[in-house]
């Protein structure tokens, strides 16, 4: 149990990279990238977890309560939203590629270059 959440984060990252490398469709590749990205959130929050701690919000708990680590949560929180806009940028690039070359298969794009 003590390393299981870390292992899950590692698995999500590796499976995302595998999908990214073997993808035959750029839209699918962007989806795989967002999977790999979510591994970092799982890892960060797993690192910050404290057994028996509550959420680091003191609006209805006394300030002496044991809480989980808020620093890693702040790191993950901003990246979730910022990461989505970067995904949007990548999808916009895919749309442009499809418009200009008529394909979203990275292998076909490679052949087009020559």
């Amino acid at each position, binding site marked *: 149990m003590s390393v299981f959440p870390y292992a899950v984060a590692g698995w*999500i990252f590796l499976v995302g990279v595998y999908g990214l490398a073997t993808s*035959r469709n750029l839209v*699918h590749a962007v989806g795989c990238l967002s999977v790999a990205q979510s591994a970092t959130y799982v890892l960060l929050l797993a690192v910050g977890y404290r057994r028996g701690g509550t959420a680091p919000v003191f609006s209805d708990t006394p300030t002496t309560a044991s809480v989980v680590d808020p620093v890693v949560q702040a790191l993950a929180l901003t990246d979730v939203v910022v990461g989505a806009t970067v995904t949007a940028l990548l999808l916009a690039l895919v*749309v442009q590629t499809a418009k200009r070359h008529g394909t979203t298969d990275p292998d076909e794009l490679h052949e087009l270059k020559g």
Partner: protein
Amino acid sequence: MADVLVVLALMFVAAAATAAVLNRDPARQAVVLSLLGLGLAVAFTVLQAPDVGLSQLGVGSALTPLMILLTVRKVRKGKGRGRE
């Protein structure tokens, strides 16, 4: 008890992530990604991170899949024209 919930949520997330990668059709992948987003939001909440869960819920289960679906629609429309 809390540990059991964490393990269950993380197992669901790992399974959803694998399914999202193995679904080679982007439109189907978008649906699985939205499931993954939902699973991640639950996992984050169980890990006592409601702030992150809230932002993951909006982004992962609605925004990203919607943008992927719209991209798929645009790309397919372009391809259909190309074949004519």
